[in-house]
């Protein structure tokens, strides 16, 4: 898609017009990103309730994403969703608040309550909702770098 940037004098004049043949998921995401300063990804609920179709989930709601048996799950404070994205795709899609912390897990740094080191060099991250995830030894260095430690 052709993207044009036109400079304006003040914030009141700022406007984004998207000219498209149809509304796609990507355009929806772009719109939400511009409107809320937050990217969204299409996910579907895993609860199995009838009528649970695809919904857009703001990435700021995500606690962590996990890949299990070639399926990718997205966890929020209380819910679990499934997404069509593979973990490596999410890694590119998600912003700098997210960190790959093992081969099958991407974690939202802003949702970590605390970390605890283990005897084997790994760290356990306690999330704001009380869930615990493991940060592999090789990714602890990356976490420190990201936090400027």
């Amino acid at each position, binding site marked *: 898609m052709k993207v044009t940037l036109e400079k304006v004098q003040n914030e009141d004049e700022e406007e984004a017009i998207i000219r498209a043949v149809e509304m796609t998921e990507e355009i929806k995401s772009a719109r939400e990103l511009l409107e809320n300063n937050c990217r969204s990804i299409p996910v579907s609920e895993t609860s199995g309730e009838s009528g649970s179709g695809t919904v857009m989930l703001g990435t700021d709601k995500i606690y962590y994403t996990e890949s299990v048996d070639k399926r990718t799950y997205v966890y929020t404070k209380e819910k679990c969703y499934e997404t069509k994205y593979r973990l490596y795709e999410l890694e590119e899609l998600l912003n700098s608040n997210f960190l790959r912390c093992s081969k099958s897990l991407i974690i939202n740094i802003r949702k970590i*309550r605390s970390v605890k080191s283990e005897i*084997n060099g790994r760290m356990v991250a306690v999330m704001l909702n009380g869930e615990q995830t493991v940060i592999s030894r090789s990714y602890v260095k990356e976490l420190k770098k990201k*936090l400027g*430690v």
Partner: protein
Amino acid sequence: MSKIKIIFSQTLMISTAILFGLGVQAFFYMLYGNGDRISWQWFIPLSIIVTAFLCSVPTLLLLDEAESSKNFTIRQILHFLCVLAVLSLCGWLFDWYDSVSSYLFVLVMYVIIYVFVCVATYWLAKNDEIKINDALDGVRDEE
């Protein structure tokens, strides 16, 4: 590739540790007035590097990240015993000790260095934990 890197860095560290042990031994010889007895054969430096490399190989036992802490403790004990076996065998092959007392000295040095490395690693990890938790305070979302 990363495993080769680990083995290489471990070889360097263990070589340094053995040289340290040798240095301490020489220091005690000198303290007790036996400084003139200190002499090393031509193959000693090479034997240190070979031993260090063989001692670094059991490190592969500790690299499985999927293991639980309990299993890791078992692996750590296995690692300790493997390295001790390699050290004892190499010491015997390279003629590092001429009596039971000199073997005991090597043994004590090994235990001291092993415990020191474990404690230092634990301390560094705890230090990282504190620093990371402090940094997280600044970026954490409101619940």
